[in-house]
């Protein structure tokens, strides 16, 4: 063991209050494991928003359909990275795909991720962009032309019948995709919710809470990106679309808040063996991240902002400003939710007699900078995707002459 980590552990030892089992001093699931459910949540949420348009025919949100789809894809390709970097032996990761232990919730990762990426997202993206890729391949100069040709899988049917088939396929994929998105994030919740040794995690509601908070964060992210993209392109924001999306956001936050309040009340009322240490945990370790960031700034304030924006008949500029503030606060709140679950669940001893401390590294593979990099990376991927693939307004330009 290197002297640096020995020193770190003995420093942690001085911050322990009460009694903990000696092996518990090390916090095994670090900031990277906070980032993982946060990112998969964004994938599931963005996809469900995209599905609204397809399955439920919500025409208002059509301008964000492709953006939501590409957002889901960009975050999806980054999602396994924090897991991989966290492993003690990342070079053995393929074991989880080739030799999964079927009783392990975590071993389902390969199936769920593979299915969602290959069976849902990539397929839907391909059908959605197939016709545009063919058109782009005809227009673009040499190097990109080959890329577009390859991406269209050398299809060259631009007929209306071809497009109708695409639409039909997309519809079927989305219908399969919604339960798959539920599965993707519900399953991440199950990884935590099924740990009976940990009373902070062990709850049948956790997968559902994960799912609702995923929908909240996904919708909030797409709203954020839509507004940023419109500003960058100096295009007007479709206020009808924005108002509809924020309404969905509002209801999703209310459902999420209700579920979390139910979970909290249920624990408090049942008042099991662990209730005292969990109370101490909230008061001493999670007050800032749970009460202030997650509940107050991440939920109640955005709800109030959305109520004001909707009912005070504000002008477009005023609403845009309030919406923008609300979605940023909501992102902060959902990240805090992930933090409180993942880190919070490791800050109390399973002897229920003491609390540990988590000190985030700054550098280092499981440190703050890596986490920040992993949170920025999907936006880089998205920027590239938006650069090479037309989001909706560009498509219309392409379509009109064609």
């Amino acid at each position, binding site marked *: *063991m*290197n002297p640096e*980590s*020995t020193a770190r*552990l*003995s420093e942690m*030892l001085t911050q322990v209050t009460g*009694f*903990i*089992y*000696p*092996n*518990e*001093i*090390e916090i*095994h*699931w670090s900031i990277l494991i906070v980032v993982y459910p946060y990112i998969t949540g964004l994938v599931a949420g963005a996809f469900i928003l995209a599905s609204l348009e397809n399955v439920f025919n919500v025409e208002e949100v059509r301008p964000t359909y492709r953006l939501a789809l590409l957002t889901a894809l960009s975050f999806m390709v980054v999602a396994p990275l924090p*897991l991989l970097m*966290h*492993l*003690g*032996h*990342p070079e*053995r*990761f393929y*074991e*989880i795909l080739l*030799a*999964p*232990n079927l*009783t*392990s*919730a*975590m*071993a389902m*990762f390969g199936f769920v991720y593979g299915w969602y990426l290959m069976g849902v997202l990539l397929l839907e993206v391909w059908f959605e962009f197939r016709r545009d890729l063919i058109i782009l391949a005809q227009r673009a100069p040499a190097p990109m032309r080959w890329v577009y040709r390859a991406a269209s899988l050398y299809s060259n049917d631009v007929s209306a019948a071809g497009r109708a088939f695409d639409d039909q396929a997309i519809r079927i994929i989305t219908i399969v995709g919604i339960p798959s998105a539920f599965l993707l994030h519900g399953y991440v919740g199950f*990884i935590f919710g*099924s*740990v*009976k*040794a*940990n009373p902070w995690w062990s709850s049948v509601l956790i997968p559902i809470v994960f799912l609702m908070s995923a929908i909240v964060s996904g919708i909030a992210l797409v709203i954020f990106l839509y507004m940023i993209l419109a500003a960058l392109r100096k295009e007007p924001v479709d206020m009808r679309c924005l108002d509809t999306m924020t309404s969905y956001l509002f209801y999703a936050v209310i459902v999420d808040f209700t579920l979390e309040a139910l979970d909290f009340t249920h624990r408090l009322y049942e008042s099991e063996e662990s209730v005292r240490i969990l109370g101490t945990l909230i008061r001493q370790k999670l007050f800032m991240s749970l009460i202030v960031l997650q509940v107050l700034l991440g939920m109640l304030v955005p709800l109030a902002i959305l109520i004001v924006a909707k009912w005070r008949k504000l002008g477009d500029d005023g609403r845009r400003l309030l919406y923008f503030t609300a979605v940023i606060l909501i992102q902060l709140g959902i990240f805090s939710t992930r933090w409180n679950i993942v880190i919070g*669940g*490791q800050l109390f*001893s*399973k*002897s*229920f*007699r003491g609390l540990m401390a988590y000190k985030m590294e700054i550098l280092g593979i499981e440190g703050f900078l890596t986490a920040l990099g992993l949170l920025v990376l999907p936006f880089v991927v998205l920027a590239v995707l938006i650069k090479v693939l037309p989001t909706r307004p560009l498509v219309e330009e392409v379509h009109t002459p064609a």
Partner: protein
Amino acid sequence: MNKREFLKSMQGLILFFPAAGVLSALGVDVSAQETSGAGAAPPPGAGYNPKDHLYGMGIEIDKCIGCNRCVEACKAENDVPQDDAHYRTWVERYVIKKDGEVSVVNISGSAAAAREGMPEDTDILRTFFVPKLCNQCVNPPCVQVCPVGATFSTEDGVVLVDANRCIGCSYCIQACPYGARYMNPRTKTADKCTFCYHRVRQGLLPACVEVCPTQARVFGDLRSKASRLVRFARMNKIHVLKPALNTEPKVYYAQLDGEVR
């Protein structure tokens, strides 16, 4: 010959012969018993069928004097990091006061609280030591959650980790209700008590049991009627840790206090 004369004439025999003879005879007997207690594992080469054995451990709380020899032996035998954050076995000291206040310390560490003696307090109601280790559960949550099957139950009832397969995800550590697992900083894989499987398969006792000066730890084969563990279970009221979690531990405690978790 009256009784007094008889005793006088037998003095030598009673005082000296038995002292040497009986003790040495006992010694042979004890080691023979212990070997059979360890499951009568035959020397290597002879056919060992794991299905014929099911290992467990008994711990008699009232016999533990908190000397930590088990912890030292374990760390030496199994190359466990010599620091305060990695243990395959450790000893907890419970002090319960009259007002119901419970204070627990891991006395196997180098922390000041572990080194200081018992508080000179008249308010103490009861106090005792509790050796802890992997409970080698029949329904081990760690085995259930391991994504690659690197941690597994052997047929003779020991939960082991294959360090060549473990990917180091720490899920098993999260799943263990007893805090019995740690991430080995050298191999970067999960690690834990193996009941000294390498010794047990040779017919030896686990290192902690071998060195315990008060025989507070009893190791044995639940499938053998002659086993010391079966006798231990017959002679004591036994209890396991966190029974509500349905892990079915195979580390059995006698005189376990309700405060112990």
